[in-house]
């Protein structure tokens, strides 16, 4: 049996690091540091380096800027154009409609809010492959497909959804909108919880109409979420690949479904032209960076005195 003093000495003789308030945090954050160095910093530098190389299996050759010279070709512009249109549509749809839905869902006259919230959130749980399967079925080419029956009912001709640029874009935007609408509604609902009821009462007393109440009370409260959602929707839009893949795999007629990431994938992975793929990636990063900066500037995120 050990005496008290023995136990104490045993404790102090144990590696001090276990008890060190100074060292513990560094040990705790070390997985992040490791992962940052290995999985972010190194690939970052490596991508930049790779973009100046011709990478052929077994050998690597520096070729200066020629990958970048190749980047700006018609296929790239098609991908950029598709991606840009997709970004604009998803940003408009996924920031404004959820805002309206959330405001209505937060209204005192609405019932069954839990059911409605849950049902619009459910799409977010599906994988893009499963969701895409369903969308391909609903928007099938045959006249009997649901979407075609629907538009025929209103007197329109049936459409081969996946085979023309406009409808292909519609499918990709619709799929993304369907999946992410509910999540964004939740974000807005959370922000709306912060709006004090007194402000609305004060506005009522001042005789404010619905629009004035929205402009002066509701919108200022949800503006941070609006900025947040428009920023991440933009970034996610530029990263889009899966919505396109699920409809077209990697080849669509006339590249109507080609996106920037799809281009990186087909050049870098499928054609094994890693240097060129990396160069497209770096250009994409530059575009995202510039667009995000402009967006943050326009939405006033840089203005500190914003109230």
């Amino acid at each position, binding site marked *: 049996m050990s005496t008290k003093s023995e136990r104490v000495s045993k404790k102090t003789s144990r590696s001090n690091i*276990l*008890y060190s*308030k*100074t060292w513990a*945090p560094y*040990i*705790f*954050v070390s*997985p*992040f*540091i490791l*992962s940052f160095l290995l*999985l*972010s910093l*190194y*690939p*970052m530098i*490596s*991508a930049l380096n*790779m973009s100046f190389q011709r990478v052929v299996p077994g050998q690597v050759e520096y070729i200066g800027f020629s990958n970048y010279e190749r980047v700006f070709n018609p296929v790239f512009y098609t991908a950029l154009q598709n991606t840009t249109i997709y970004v604009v549509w998803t940003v408009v749809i996924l920031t404004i409609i959820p805002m309206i*839905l959330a405001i*209505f*869902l937060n209204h*005192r*006259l*609405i*019932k069954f809010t839990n059911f*409605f919230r849950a*049902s619009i959130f459910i*799409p977010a749980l*599906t*994988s893009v*492959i*499963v969701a895409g*399967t*369903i969308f391909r*079925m609903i*928007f*099938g080419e045959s006249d009997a497909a649901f979407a075609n029956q629907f538009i025929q009912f209103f007197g329109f001709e049936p459409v081969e959804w996946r085979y023309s640029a406009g409808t292909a874009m519609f499918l990709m935007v619709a799929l993304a909108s*369907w999946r992410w*609408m509910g999540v964004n509604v*939740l*974000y807005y609902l959370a922000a709306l919880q912060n709006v004090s009821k007194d402000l609305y009462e004060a506005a009522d007393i001042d005789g404010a109409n619905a629009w004035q109440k929205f402009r002066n009370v509701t919108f200022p409260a949800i503006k*941070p*979420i609006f900025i947040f959602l428009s920023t991440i929707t933009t*970034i996610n839009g530029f990263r889009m*690949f899966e919505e396109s*893949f*699920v409809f077209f*795999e990697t080849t669509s007629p006339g590249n109507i479904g080609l996106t920037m990431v799809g281009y*990186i*994938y087909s050049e*870098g*992975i499928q054609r094994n032209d*890693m240097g060129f*793929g*990396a160069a497209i*990636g*770096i250009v994409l*990063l530059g575009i995202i960076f510039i667009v995000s900066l402009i967006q943050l500037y326009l939405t006033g995120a840089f203005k500190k005195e914003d109230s």
Partner: protein
Amino acid sequence: MKFSNLNAKEKTASVGLIIFFSLISLVALFPVISLIVASFSPSSDLMRFGLAPELFFSAFTMENFDVLFGGEAGAYWRWYLNSLIISGVLIVISLFFSSLVGYALALYEFKGKRFIFILVLLILMIPFEILMLPLYTMMINLRLVDTYFGVMLPLIVAPITVFFFRQYCLGLPKELMESGRVDGCTEFGIYARIMAPLMLPSFAAMAILTGLMSWNNFLWPLIVLRSNDMFTLPVGLATLLTPYGNNYEILFSGSVMAIIPIIILFLFFQRFFIAGLTSGGVKG
């Protein structure tokens, strides 16, 4: 507010809102419902994409599921198992490491803390897709192509999870850490025995988020996995989407089965997830 207490105008508005949201819910649920209906419909009806999905069964049949459970499903259950293993292991590892990082960033004072937090935010903004080619060559060099670990690696310390844990831990009482020290706990012991139990709601929320991210993850597994037997469920299901295959039985019934674990996970932790999504995430 009781319905009967409303005046006529408010009643109309209330009914209008409910009808409006019922329609919205129908649009949101329609694709899922039609998938389920399709999975119980004769596959001859589904031989080509685009036969009308209906809200009611034309002819109820289990034949699609018979294929799935009758051993004709090829590698389907192997994909399922791969996804379960990868997501399960990832939830455990990622929650452990990410919670430690977030916990340290929130509750300790140390040199470089601000810098590390800024790094977390920065990585949050760099698209993974830019890094995927170098990561892929790295996986080739480390011989991790076509392995579970290769799929998991990029998600092990996900910055979004770290960020969430940090936000959550900011609200924990630091005094408890002091009392743990007085009682002779190691620093890790304080985390594991005193603070982690207080973090249970955030563990629940992040279990769902990590499970969801991993279960539905597509691009990276598509790149890093080679053999049919190693595919995860989304990658495997995607191979059935080709115009040449006639595996629609597996595609539809298999897609329904693919949603089930995530629905279970979601229902189990739902309360925490909604709260987690909406509270920890963004503030002003």
